[in-house]
């Protein structure tokens, strides 16, 4: 199983939380470049844990341990000489619920560019506008850029999170059930944005709804109890699943 255009490769990955059985069991995967890969499976199957290994967020959880390798562009992000901040800068994250930085709409987008010194002075205004436009939010906020970001609706907040993430110039976008807290219209907005952006970014989205997986996926990973049951191009997995468990899940049995 080798993809023609692998961006992320996972080798023999195991993850554990304190005193519990392993959350990820010997995961081996390849994730294609500039497509949407959807990780699906019933809750507690390790989807979010797997996603968190891709930007080294798992180490923020107390007692979480990990072994194995995650290679982005062929380089292991867990090798001791890698800088965790540089890895996270390369990967934008959309969390389940948007959390606004305690500052204005403008400063939320500018924050990442400021901490990495990507843009300065007069160019900042143009850059902020550019990323807000990419996230489809510019027209709604252009007259109140300096209002607190917490005033936005939750759907707007999630799009601001996207703009904020894009502003640090990542190569990979991660979504951890990014629409689960949103109303249907806002959710559809986020899905459309992810589809629009997929040719520029390698996108990995965790979802617990099969319908969303079908709408978004180019490539699918189906997980169950910490293991990868099946993975492959969306068309193949959805129309012609090889494994009994996958067939059961697609038929709505669990």
């Amino acid at each position, binding site marked *: 199983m080798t993809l023609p255009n692998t961006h992320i490769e996972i080798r023999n990955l195991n993850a554990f939380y304190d005193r519990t059985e392993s959350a990820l069991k010997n995961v081996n995967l390849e994730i294609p470049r500039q497509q949407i890969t959807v990780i699906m499976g019933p809750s507690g199957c390790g989807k979010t844990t797997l996603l968190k290994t891709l*930007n080294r967020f798992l180490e923020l959880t107390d007692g979480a341990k990990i072994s194995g390798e995650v290679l982005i562009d062929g380089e292991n992000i867990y090798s001791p000489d890698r800088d965790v901040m540089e890895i*996270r800068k390369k990967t934008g994250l959309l969390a389940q619920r948007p*959390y*606004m930085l305690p500052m204005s709409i403008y400063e939320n987008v500018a924050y990442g560019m400021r*901490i990495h010194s990507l843009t300065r002075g007069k160019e900042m205004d143009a850059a902020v506008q550019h990323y807000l436009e990419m996230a489809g939010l510019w027209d709604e906020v252009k007259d109140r850029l300096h209002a607190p970001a*917490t005033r936005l609706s939750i759907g707007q907040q999630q799009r601001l999170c996207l703009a*904020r993430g894009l502003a*640090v110039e990542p190569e990979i976008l991660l979504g951890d059930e990014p629409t689960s807290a949103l109303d249907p219209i806002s959710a559809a907005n986020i899905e459309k944005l992810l589809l629009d952006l997929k040719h520029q970014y390698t996108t990995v989205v965790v979802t617990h709804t099969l319908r969303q997986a079908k709408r978004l996926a180019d490539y699918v990973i189906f997980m169950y109890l910490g293991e990868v049951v099946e993975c492959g191009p969306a068309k193949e997995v959805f129309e012609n699943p090889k494994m009994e468990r996958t067939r059961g899940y697609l038929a709505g049995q669990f």
Partner: protein
Amino acid sequence: MSNWHFRRKHVAESIAKFFMLLSFLIVAASLISILWTILSKGLPSLSWSMISQTPKGGYYLGKEGGILNAIIGSLLLAVGGTIIALLISLPITLYLETYIAKTKWARYVRLTMDILWGIPSIVYGAFGFTLMLSLGLRASLLGGIVVLALLEIPILTRAMDEVLRLMPDELKHASYALGASKLQTAVRVIIRQMMPGIVTASLLAFGRGIGDAASVLFTAGYTDRIPTSLSSPTASLPLAIFFQLGTPYPEVQNRAYASALILTLIVLVISLGSRLLSARLSRFINK
């Protein structure tokens, strides 16, 4: 049987509610009677000369002059003490939250702060006094500020720590996800998020500092003059009240209530001001 069972529950609830209400009434009545006492006794003695002049005729024993030296002294002591305490407490709190959160070291730091909070202020005063003697310093504005800062550090640290523990981890994570360091996250995100908490904690510490007599008795001293430098002895409002109340003259005793009224007004104005500031600052924070 079940009827009786339910009636007993209702009776128990009524009794409990009665004692809760009683406790509240005791507190409310104390507050009102304190305010009534200082207003009714202090207001007649309160005059412009009281707040615009220094004492005449010896250390607060005179019936003439005012307590300007103590007003300025107290403000300098409490503002100075609170600023220094904040400069020390804020890094402690951020370190607790960002670097050693949930480790045993964090528990030790919190325990230490709780013990320090419980130490009576006269002990801080005595400690400060001994320290100053060994350094060859005399009672001074600087000595008072340093001791008040020591007294306020545990209050500020624990009050800000409690605010920070309410902060969702996801907010920190939102910053980490963008590739920010812990320091950048602490300085640019966490401090902003806790701004209203910093204001409230500072107010709590300021109130304790400006109202404390025992810690400044030996360390800042007492004088009729307005301090001119950090090494001048400095008067304070709590000590002014203490000395005025200790005289045998009823007129001077009533001036003590006027001093108490001024002290209360200072705390009130600062409370209201910080509430307004806090409300403005919390517009931006994530709730």
